[in-house]
């Protein structure tokens, strides 16, 4: 017996390769070796993927050493323990797949296999260097970061705001709801898809160990969710219990779960009430030029809306509103009636719009969430408020489907 049989070792990585075929392009050990290592050389995930790479290259001793280093730092990294078990067992008997523990529920092995697959898939992803999620049309100046979650890739991406243009910073492995995405009902154990923001921070002292190093609630259900009759509450970004380094890709009750170290790193970037969290079932990455085209058309439209409001020509103003408009309390007819009544008493109106953010809403329908600080002044009334509008693409034009105070 000299070392571990090649065949047995390839079973570990090979099993993953075959299974990932169904989910995307073929992953050969070679491509794994080339791509994975370059993208994320550090961190626990970089290490475990490095181990897979070493196994694929038949450098078993190096893989062992790397695993031991990884486990010395993260002894609760269960996936790494599983791979270690396989490498050891391969020296005692042929193994055929990732996870060869006998006499345990297959479900628990499958959870770890899923995690391995998810982490490998993440490493094969497009490097978001020169491309951006199509959702990030415009960040408000005060928004230092934006977060985009791609549930199909078990990934949370962090973007930094540089003069309104998002720049990729890092990404993390995340766990989402047991039953997947598109949350609709209380208790459906799904993760919502939409544009949200971080609303608060729950003190660790008040949380159970289950939430790990912290919890940040997000604004589900938002205006659009409520309009669609979605309910439920308590969707958080949170950490991981102490007894495990990470959780399987689909295991939460709908929350987005990070490892404690990742959550701690992320929490330093979060601004309560400001940081957008966009959760998508599959992110489209587009060139900045594509983003700016959509951004310009939307900016022009919002500017037209602002000018039309200042013109006190209610008809011109109302052309920006969709037939299905709702303010949450008023439909389009009621809204129109109220605006006419208000405008009748105005001799002048000045509207300033600032701190604008614009995000496309995940999903098939073209929908944009525009949030801004509105400074309204008129001959008899003035106020400053933060406002949110949901603009829906109607043919060539953008129309407001919802408008309300934030």
């Amino acid at each position, binding site marked *: *017996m000299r070392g*571990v*049989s090649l*065949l*047995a070792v390839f079973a570990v990585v090979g099993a993953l390769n075959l299974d990932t075929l169904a989910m995307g392009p073929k992953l050969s050990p070679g491509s794994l070796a080339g791509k994975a290592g370059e993208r994320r050389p550090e961190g626990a995930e970089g290490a475990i993927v490095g181990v897979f790479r070493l196994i694929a290259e038949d450098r078993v001793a190096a893989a062992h050493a790397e695993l031991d280093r990884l486990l010395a730092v993260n*002894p*609760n990294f*269960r*996936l790494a*323990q*599983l791979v*270690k*078990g*396989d*490498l*050891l*067992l*391969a*020296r*005692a*008997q*042929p193994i*055929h797949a990732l*996870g*060869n*523990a*006998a*006499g*345990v529920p297959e479900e*628990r*092995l499958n959870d*770890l296999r899923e995690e391995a697959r998810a982490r490998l898939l993440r490493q094969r992803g497009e490097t978001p260097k020169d491309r951006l999620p199509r959702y990030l049309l415009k960040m408000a100046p005060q928004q230092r970061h934006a977060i985009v979650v791609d549930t199909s890739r078990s990934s949370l991406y962090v973007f930094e705001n540089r003069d309104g243009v998002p720049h990729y910073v890092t990404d993390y492995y995340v766990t989402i709801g047991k039953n997947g995405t598109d949350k609709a009902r209380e208790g459906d154990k799904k993760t919502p898809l939409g544009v949200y923001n971080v609303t608060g921070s729950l003190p660790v002292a008040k949380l159970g160990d289950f939430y790990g190093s912290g919890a940040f609630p997000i604004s589900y259900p938002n205006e659009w969710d409520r309009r669609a009759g979605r309910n439920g509450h308590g969707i958080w970004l949170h950490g991981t219990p102490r*007894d*495990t380094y990470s959780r399987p890709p689909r295991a939460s009750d709908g929350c987005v779960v990070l490892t404690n170290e990742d959550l701690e790193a992320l929490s330093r970037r979060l601004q309560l009430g400001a940081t957008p969290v966009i959760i998508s079932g599959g992110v489209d990455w587009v060139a900045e030029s594509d983003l700016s085209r959509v951004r310009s058309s939307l900016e022009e439209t919002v500017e037209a809306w602002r000018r039309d409001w200042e013109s006190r020509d209610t008809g011109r103003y109302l052309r920006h509103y969709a037939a299905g408009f709702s303010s949450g309390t008023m439909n389009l007819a009621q809204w129109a009636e109220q605006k006419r009544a208000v405008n009748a008493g105005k001799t002048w109106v000045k509207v300033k719009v600032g701190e604008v953010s614009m995000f496309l809403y995940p999903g098939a329908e073209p929908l944009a969430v525009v949030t801004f600080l509105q400074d309204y002044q008129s001959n008899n009334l003035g106020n400053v408020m933060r406002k949110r509008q949901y603009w829906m693409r109607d043919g060539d034009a953008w129309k407001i489907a919802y408008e309300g105070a934030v």
Partner: protein
Amino acid sequence: MTYPSRAVPGLILICFTLLLPTSARADDFQEARRLFQQGSYPQALERVDAVLVKQPKDARARFLRGLIFTEQSRFPEAIRVFTALTEDYPELPEPYNNLAVIYASQGQDEKARQALEMAIRTHPTYATAHENLGDIYAKMARQAYDKALQLDASNASAKAKLALVKELFSTRASVVAPVKGTIPEPPVPSPAVVAAGPVSPVVSAPAGATPPPAKPEAPAAAAASPPPKAGEASRSKEPADPQAEVLRALDQWVKAWSSGDANAYLGAYAPGFKPPGGQNRTEWERSRRERVVKGKRIAVQALSPKVTFAGPEEAVVTFRQSYQSDTLKTIGSKRLVMVRSAGRWLIQREELGR
């Protein structure tokens, strides 16, 4: 989850006339060994110490001393003895193997692993060390799985039970019976030395509580006819020939093993089969089913089988067993005592790794 315990090979009782220049010392040593086998450890120790006073470097006496300490659970002393042997005779795998057994019994798996790797470094084909190493790796794997799946941690603390080697030079052609006047080869350890000449039937003395194996009556009956090559046995055209029948049974057993047909494999054993090492039958069958599985790439061959009859219903088959899997390659001697039951030859007793 209990860890499948390894079959401990029966005590090997073949006398080595090796390293016994004087008959007086030989007598002392034999006496010490006899006492050890009887379980009279303090007396055995006294005798061994007497031998060592005269010949402090005597490897076999020191080895026996280590065995006595091991049996007495005087592990630190046993470790010292075996460690010293590995230092003085780094080419001998047995002391490494037994060190590993003690370390494993104390849960020091990493040390056990290192010792076994050393045993294999000196003797790449040393089957016992390979099997022990396999068990250590399997156990370490199990611990990792327990952590991966958060299973009851008490499982992880189960000790691996490895096979203790009770004879120095056990890797050598140890099935050679002590024929008077024959001087065995010098104990230069070399990989996979297997007896080249015709193999005589083995005469084993009782080992501990194990019942004595069938005693072939006429050694001359051995290899009465030219031994067929492995694989040819089943092609024999003489169904009435008991030797051919035995060889056919052997062939079927080998094929069942190689193909991972656990039912056929276990079906080759007689109802009265005594699993080695005092394991009970159920335990043994379970551990065999774990190893004899379909889809596993195993090639087992029985090379140069020789049949001796101890009676019309009882035969002793000796052969060189070649075992090859994805992870393990061994060649060793094997001895099967087979009994005829309802027209079939079944394995009553199986001895390996000698």
